[in-house]
């Protein structure tokens, strides 16, 4: 199964999208990032058939679907608002796309979906009674019940509160993988990339300026000293720390995973051997000169590779880039702290943070790139 977008263009007054060339295969999730107005939603709408491209074609498994009517494309689509049908209850919304008769085996599928999303007690409720997260779950169930092979998602979690978003996003990735659905996810939030992507495409002013696997982009991010050379910096100027690794210990609500040579402790219990990904805000990383006893569970010796005035913050804030052998960590400190500690580039320093600080945004049995590399040695993205 693959989705191939070939030389697609669309011209509006004052804006041109494309030519876009993009291929997705091997059940991967591609996260398409770009600033507002970069053409992300237009590209999704062209793929669903809601907008006709000026030129170019879209293929699903060698079949040209460019001129196919919307209803025949069998592509799932999640919009920013859940767009549930207000005149139907939850159950009727979920089964809306099914043919008239709901067969027995289908009913089992519906039930398993409903249970997976914890919607069973809501089935006969009017949709006015649902929370934002429940609405988006119903919208997702409504698409998944049709068993699409491709799912397009236009920031479906943007309106949810942070905790709901993190939980639903992990469920979403797990479901896409379990059901072997190709995912194209549009966002302008950095954490969505780390939480969902196998690969990433960056759209700027209507053109894809970079597309690669998340692994490659992360290593670029970690090895690039210059922000400008970091492609993700184009979109997320205030970038967070993302660390991932295999869980080596998990007990009593505390798990330890290996990020490079460092052991990192986080809240939560995860299967040993599984991969977790965490996000930490730079302002949550504390720098100390000496090893001190604190309640913080994580302390690591890192080298200061760069210090500069923060671009995205107020005057008086310094961005500090710290490097280990395998990853880069950012910290934000005040000018006063920098002067007080007499920090210099090249200096070795302790970076500490609490086990309660990071958000776990990814947890899966294997690293995404291992899965990909086992199945497919080649490049899964083409960029003109």
């Amino acid at each position, binding site marked *: 199964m693959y989705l191939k977008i070939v030389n697609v263009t669309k011209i509006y007054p004052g804006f041109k999208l494309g030519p876009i060339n993009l291929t997705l295969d091997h059940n991967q999730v591609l996260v398409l990032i770009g600033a507002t107005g970069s053409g992300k939603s237009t590209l999704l709408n062209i793929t*669903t058939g*809601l907008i006709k491209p000026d030129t170019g074609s879209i293929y699903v498994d060698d079949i040209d679907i460019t001129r196919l*009517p*919307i*209803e*025949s*494309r*069998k*592509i*799932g*689509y999640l*919009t920013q*608002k859940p*767009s549930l*049908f*207000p*005149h139907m209850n939850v159950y009727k919304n979920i089964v*809306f*796309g099914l043919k008239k008769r709901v067969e027995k085996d289908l009913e089992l599928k519906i039930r398993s979906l409903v249970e997976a999303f914890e919607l069973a007690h809501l089935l006969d409720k009017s*949709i*006015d009674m*649902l929370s*934002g997260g429940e609405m988006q779950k119903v919208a997702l169930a*409504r*698409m998944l019940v*049709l068993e699409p092979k491709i799912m397009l998602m236009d920031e479906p979690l*943007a*309106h*949810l*509160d*942070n905790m709901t*978003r993190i939980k639903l996003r992990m469920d979403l990735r797990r479901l896409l993988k379990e059901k072997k659905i190709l995912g194209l996810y549009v966002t302008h*939030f950095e*954490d969505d990339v780390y939480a969902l992507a196998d690969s990433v495409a960056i759209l700027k002013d209507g053109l894809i300026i970079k597309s690669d696997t998340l692994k490659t982009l992360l290593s670029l991010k970690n090895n690039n000293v210059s922000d400008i050379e970091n492609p993700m910096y184009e979109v997320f100027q205030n970038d967070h720390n993302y660390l991932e690794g295999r869980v080596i210990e998990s007990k009593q609500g505390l798990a330890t995973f290996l990020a490079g040579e460092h052991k990192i402790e986080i809240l939560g219990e995860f299967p040993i051997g599984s991969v977790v990904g965490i996000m930490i805000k730079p302002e949550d990383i504390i720098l100390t000169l000496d090893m001190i006893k604190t309640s913080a569970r994580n302390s690591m010796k890192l080298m200061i590779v760069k210090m500069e005035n923060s671009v995205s913050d107020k005057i008086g804030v310094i961005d500090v880039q710290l490097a280990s052998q395998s990853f880069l960590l950012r910290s934000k400190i005040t000018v006063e702290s920098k002067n007080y500690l007499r920090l210099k580039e090249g200096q070795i320093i302790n970076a500490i943070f609490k086990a309660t600080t990071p958000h776990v945004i990814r947890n899966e049995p294997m690293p995404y790139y291992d899965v990909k590399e086992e199945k497919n040695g080649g490049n899964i993205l083409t960029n003109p």
Partner: protein
Amino acid sequence: MGDLLKLFNFKLLIYFVSALGLLYIVYPFTSIVIFIDIENTIKSIQRPELVDALVLSIVTASISTAIVILFGIPLAYFLSRYDFPGKSLLFIIVIIPLVLPPLASGALLLGVFNPNSGISNLFPEVDFTQSTIGIILAQTYVASPFMILTSMAAFGTIDRTLENIARILGKRNWQVFVQITLPLAKKGILIGIVMTWVRAIGELGATLMLAYNPHTLSIQIYEDNAIGGLSYAIPSIILSIILSMILVVVYTTLIKKFDTRNLSRSQVFNFDNIRRHD
């Protein structure tokens, strides 16, 4: 203090003007009390021609409303959903019967449907004038804008994403129309239906020109008044008042029912207050 005085005066002014307006609407009803002769009224309200006129009005208005529904809703959908050159001109044409004096509409219809017209020659056995068909023609013509305008407004307020999602979920255009668009536009369409019916019941001008006979209730009031003055017309007026009362109750019930529902819905769908927490 000065502001309070101003506010008080403003309130008083509103009360006064409203009272004048209400008086203007209610006062004509006193004529019924003045001119009514109860014994005579009870007797004449059972006049066969009066009962016939009432029944004819209800039946023709219902048929006319049904016809207007059949072509009005698709036309309203067409005007609200599709863009084409000359759309605004078409919109003006659609509302012409609303702004044209009904007598003028009747005259135009008579031009098309008179016994010597092309259409009459095409269907020689059909009486287009001085017949029930004539009444229906007049009613459908003058009442159609009510259906079309309210339906257009209703279609216009529907979130197009819902229709798009329905198509992505595998529904064809006509299925989306029946399963999503129509149910969501129900409020506007129902109000349009009631208004069309009310307009058809009250229709006089165009009917006078096209089909004076058989008499609808409006024509009956007109004729009774012409023959025997107001006191003679009172029974038919009372019948039309009763009919109007029923319609007003139906209309307000419908509006209330939908307004309370829509209120709760708009509260739920207001995403603007929800912000990301990071």
